[in-house]
């Protein structure tokens, strides 16, 4: 298997990480060597193996559905890179 530049561009779009030509070439090289290493898994037959879903075989604890914290508005917005009053500010999305 080989990951080409077109695939890199596609993954970069899905990842929301912009890449220029130079970075794409470097990434293609790195990813190809990493996937070559990963391909080792194909040596194993796993048709009848159940995938692992959790290392701990316990059932999730349930709790009552109630509000435990309040008035976090200020804290939630505190680290925003750009805000206006109680809102996050983003570039315009609707014309």
């Amino acid at each position: 298997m080989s990951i080409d530049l077109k695939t890199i561009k596609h993954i970069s779009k899905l990842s929301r990480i912009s890449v220029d030509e130079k970075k794409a070439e470097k990434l293609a090289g790195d990813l190809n060597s990493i996937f070559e290493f990963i391909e080792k898994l194909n040596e194993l037959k796993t048709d009848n193996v159940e995938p692992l879903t959790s290392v701990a075989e316990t059932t999730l604890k349930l709790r009552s559905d109630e509000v435990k914290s309040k008035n976090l508005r200020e804290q939630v917005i505190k680290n925003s890179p750009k805000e206006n009053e109680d809102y996050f500010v983003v570039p315009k999305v609707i014309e």
Partner: protein
Amino acid sequence: MLDITKQSLSELVENIKNKKLSSSEATKAFVERSEKSKELNAYITEDYANALNKAKTFDEKPNLDLKLPGIPMAVKDLFCTKDLRTTAGSKILNNFVPTYESTVTQNIWNEGAILMGKLNCDEFAMGSSNETSFFGNVQNPIDKNLVPGGSSGGSSSAVAAQLTPITIGTDTGGSIRQPASFTGTVGLKPTYGSCSRYGIVAFASSLDQAGPMAQNVKDCALLQEVISTYDEKDSTSIDFKRNEYSKELTKDIKGKKIGIPKEYRVDGMPKEIEDLWKKGIEYAKDCGAEIIDISLPHTNYALPTYYIVAPAEASSNLARYDGVKYGFRAEGENLIDMYEKTRSEGFGAEVQRRIMIGTYVLSSGYYDAYYLKAQKVRKLIKNDFDDAYKKVDAILTPSTPSSAFKIGEKTNDPVSMYLNDIFTVPVNLAGLPGISIPAGHDAKGYPLGLQIIGKAFDEQNILNIAYAMEEKINFKNNINDWWIK
């Protein structure tokens, strides 16, 4: 009294409890040593003035019943600390100041410890050498040109150099045990679900665990006792009966069955590591343990499995860094452009690489071939351990395939960097506890570690084995304070 910073955590606790030492004296000593040790670059954020104030407050009305009374401590910068910057070693969180505290650190402060600052680490804990940190690499106190291991490299460096009596790190594939091994210190990765993940910057949620990094096994047991609690704020936290690890610590391991997995004898393993392992087996026998050969047949598949599972979870976890809610933002022409520029400028190369791998293995058409396949192999790896534990109580292996390497030596070859974690990764995949203890030196005089892997929730047992072996090994770290002018 012995130089304050030369004392172990247990000694400091005892001296404070006996009123031979005040919290202010202890805190001042560690702050002063940290200040003289800037060259190591172990800290990302220092909080010395606050620490000294808190120590003063503690001394005014000392509660000596606490487990960590007035003990100063720096922690890995992956734990959210309320009102103190938490960066995860990344530019994207350079200005992030949490409004809440992680459960693990809160447990530590509840027992009387005092925060001194935040320790350097690989960006989002992705690395084995601390070289992916946005805040620069960390130096190993053993030797100027050596990496301290990673991702908890600031933590291992700070404990080995005695800038903090003890610390906590996180371990997703070896990030506590490998740096402990590289610096001649002790590091425990607890069972998955033992320590709450609440308030820890997430990397790979099914693998991440916090754990203690210490100068000796007794200190390690004491901190584990403090940090391991059931927490309803982490849905994967497990409500099991926790031991009082330090109180129940014993060197009596007579008759314990310790397994030696033949698959850990990997191709190209240096003779020094092989010899160390043999020596470890002898030490274990000397302590009265019974040695049993075992097989973990899927060991060789652990790293390829890890490099699908961990990046997949990382790509999903790191989707939250979008330049909107918190963290760094790069302006863009529109929303998508802003996202793409923010993430391209905010994340470093290794993090971007892993997000891309993760996105790819989860993407349409590839999910079954990669992610599902990896989860099936992960099951086989866990089954290997389950089978082995029908015959043995614990497993003994080397911690790493080599001693600490040079800064810059592996940065251009991601796969050779990943191979560092070959002995530690299977433990995370199976959710088991593992401890690395210093066990000897290589020809260059660099420390080497042995790993003891336990059954799930059996931390007490591996701590006991480590405690017994530690006495036989009688390891001494060669640190000459070269960085202090």
